[in-house]
């Protein structure tokens, strides 16, 4: 199957548009809306469900993210070289992926249920949040679908495209600035759908509350507890309006 014009647009051009929006949008948001850059925690309203749902979702998601990084960035030749067989790789990846995926889905389902049924949390939910949840859930569902399809194919000996020969090379090629459109064209429909929703999510990312993920406070681990700061530090013009003379 040779790539069509649509394929070139989707897998050759769109990724760069999304990258531009993701990076440009994040920079713009950071410059323009540092005040709006927050988790917008709703724990003050409701804690009981959140204390289960949020960690389940986030920890599941962290595993999913690691899985993506490994699956997309590490070429098959490398794992072959260290002696991991295809079979071993796929059994581990699919089972771990399925568990993490289901956990994430369960977590977000509970989060959304909480959001819908808890009055205060619901009234603090913006349209922006709703769109974000829609795309996020779609991405998780489509991702789980690819995992399950691959697993079923593996078990029944049927045929499902190996993403490590299609999606992954394409993903890496995007960053070499030589998008391998043909590789992605060869992937199955489920993978294409998941990739498209994923791209949508990345494009939306800078404009939603999801930006909180970019400020994951890892450097807290390396900082002294008490922070001193001088009053005279120049306020950056992009975030502070003109004020009185002394501030």
């Amino acid at each position, binding site marked *: 199957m040779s790539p069509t014009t649509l394929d070139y647009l989707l897998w050759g051009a769109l990724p760069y548009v999304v990258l531009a929006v993701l990076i440009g949008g994040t920079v713009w948001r950071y410059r*323009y*809306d*540092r*005040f*709006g*850059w*927050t*988790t*917008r*925690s*709703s*724990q*003050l*309203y*409701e*804690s009981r469900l*959140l*204390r*289960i*749902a*949020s*960690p389940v*979702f*986030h*920890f599941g998601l962290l595993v999913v993210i690691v899985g993506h990084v490994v699956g997309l960035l590490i070429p098959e030749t490398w794992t072959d070289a260290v002696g991991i067989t295809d079979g071993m790789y796929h059994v581990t990846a699919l089972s771990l992926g399925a568990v993490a995926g289901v956990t994430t889905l369960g977590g977000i389902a509970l989060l959304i249920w909480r959001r819908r049924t808890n*009055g*205060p949390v619901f*009234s*603090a939910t*913006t349209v*922006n949040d709703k769109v974000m949840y829609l795309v996020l859930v779609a991405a998780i569902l489509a991702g789980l679908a690819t995992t399950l399809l691959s697993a079923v194919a593996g078990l029944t000996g049927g045929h499902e495209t190996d993403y490590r020969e299609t999606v992954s090379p394409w993903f890496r090629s995007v960053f070499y600035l030589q998008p391998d459109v043909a590789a992605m064209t060869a992937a199955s429909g489920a993978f294409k759908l998941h990739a498209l929703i994923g791209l949508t999510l990345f494009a939306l990312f800078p*404009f*939603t*509350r999801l930006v*909180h993920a970019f*400020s994951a*406070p*890892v*450097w*807290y*681990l390396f*900082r002294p*507890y*008490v*922070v*001193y*700061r*001088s*009053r*005279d530090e120049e306020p950056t013009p992009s*975030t*502070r*309006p*003109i*004020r*009185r*003379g*002394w*501030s």
Partner: protein
Amino acid sequence: MAQRIGKVMAQVAMVMNLDKCIGCHTCSVTCKQAWTNRSGVEYVWFNNVETRPGQGYPRRHEDQERWQGGWKRTATGRLKPRAGGRLKKLATIFANPKMPSIQDYYEPWTYDYEHLVSAPLGDDIPGARPRSLISGEPMQIKWSANWDDDLAGGEELAANDPIVQKIGDKVRFDYEQAFMFYLPRICEHCLNPSCVAACPSGAMYKRAEDGIVLVDQDKCRGWRMCVTGCPYKKVYFNHKTGKAEKCTLCYPRVEVGMPTVCSETCVGRLRYLGVILYDVERVGRAAAVKDEKDLYEAQLDVFLDPDDPEVQAAAIRDGIPERWVASARRSPIHLLAKRFRVALPLHPEYRTMPMVWYIPPLSPVVDALSESGHDGEDAGNLFAAIDTLRIPVEYLAELFTAGDPGPVKDVLGKLAAMRSYMRRINLGEEPDESIATAAGMTGADIERMYRLLALAKYDDRYVIPTAYGVDEADRGVIDEIGCSLDFEGGPGMGGMGGEAPFGEASGRPQPASVETFHALRDRQTSDGRSGPARRFNLLNWDGNGRPPGLFPERDQKNSPGRDQKNSPGPDQKNSPDRQDGPEPEARRNTRDGGHLRGHGESK
């Protein structure tokens, strides 16, 4: 003093004289008007006044077994946030296990005033039912910030005071034997702030120049760990903006040499503000002393004597302006806390080294003595009475000295001595130095303390140097270099704020005065949570004008004189929906301090 002087830092600190607090809540209300009169912080009281014994605000915040605020001393003698160190904080960041819920504070509400005018005609008088400002639903009011004010609820509520539970039967609630006093609380602007330590993004900081602890609103990412970190529960989460907010010690006022709003408006004139010089290198060790009861003494050791030339030289060496050193020498805080030792820290056992100190109340001891036929102002009688005060010394000790009654008795002794000593002088008798000596003071010190505590002149209470770089000529006058409403998109530039890009809390932060301006406008036209103007909040109505929704619509044709655009009728002068209506008010608010001073202040 042979101790080496490390890096010297300056701190603007406060002392409150509890004997004078009448529990009027003026401080809370003026603070709220100035800082938290916005949606998202309806439940937030940077300043609150608690009746003790009582549960406080938020409820039972002193129960650190439950809330895990402040620091804990580890077996190796180091300090660690009680709720857990850095790793544990990050591991529990997705849902904070020790986060108070809005119910622990109280659910803010308004009343359904619209029903008063929209109810159908009938025999029953319509009522305005309470509605939650959080969910918008009708609600039952079951608790609020001062639900147990003045011992309301009696033993049933006050028995849940964590201190009462600790010291048990020493506290009496029978009507004849009950006691109470008021405890106004603000952020302590601690020397070893655990809120700052708990903030994963490093958005909270202690200002190097004056020690004020602030939240950088542009850096806060809403991890809400600081709420748990502060044992005094003085960091609040703005549920609309998703950012933490806390008492700022009114830094825009303090920077120009004016007292905080709560101090300025305090009816009892019981608040003192001044500079303390301290050795920052001693803070860590002092906060980690083994015995909790030594913490009070340890903190006093951190404070430096501003009259000591070596301290002065060290302060100048470390970049503290001479003006500040001079101010520290006149500081009422230094006098009350360190020299006279009549002010005590609140809950030193939290190990945050709080910097708002309290002079404990002597309770109505003179009256009680006089009623029992004694000379209520005789030194001997007074000293003896301290052990049998209605407010048990043990209770005060749990508040101020980690349970050690010694320092509290000393303070009460000094306050009693001041009464006896000064009475002799007032009666024209010879001053009796032995009264002073018995309390460990000198007559001269007592007279100085009397000036500070009893006469309490404005300029003695507030000794605040202006911020670095601000001219001394600015003292007491806030003059705006530009109009505070002149920010991009602000009313001063013709804009009115407008829609925010990512929900109501996003976009650039607005100066507080502008927010107040909009809040005032919005509130005069609506008491809804954030939506368009529908209902009208009676509490904000000054009796003038015809706010929309308050009265039934008038027939425009029948009253052409009321046409809003063409001829502003007399009762429209203060109509809140006029563009320029509230503006002078908003401006006046931003300058109020300049005028407040002198209003009824005896100098």
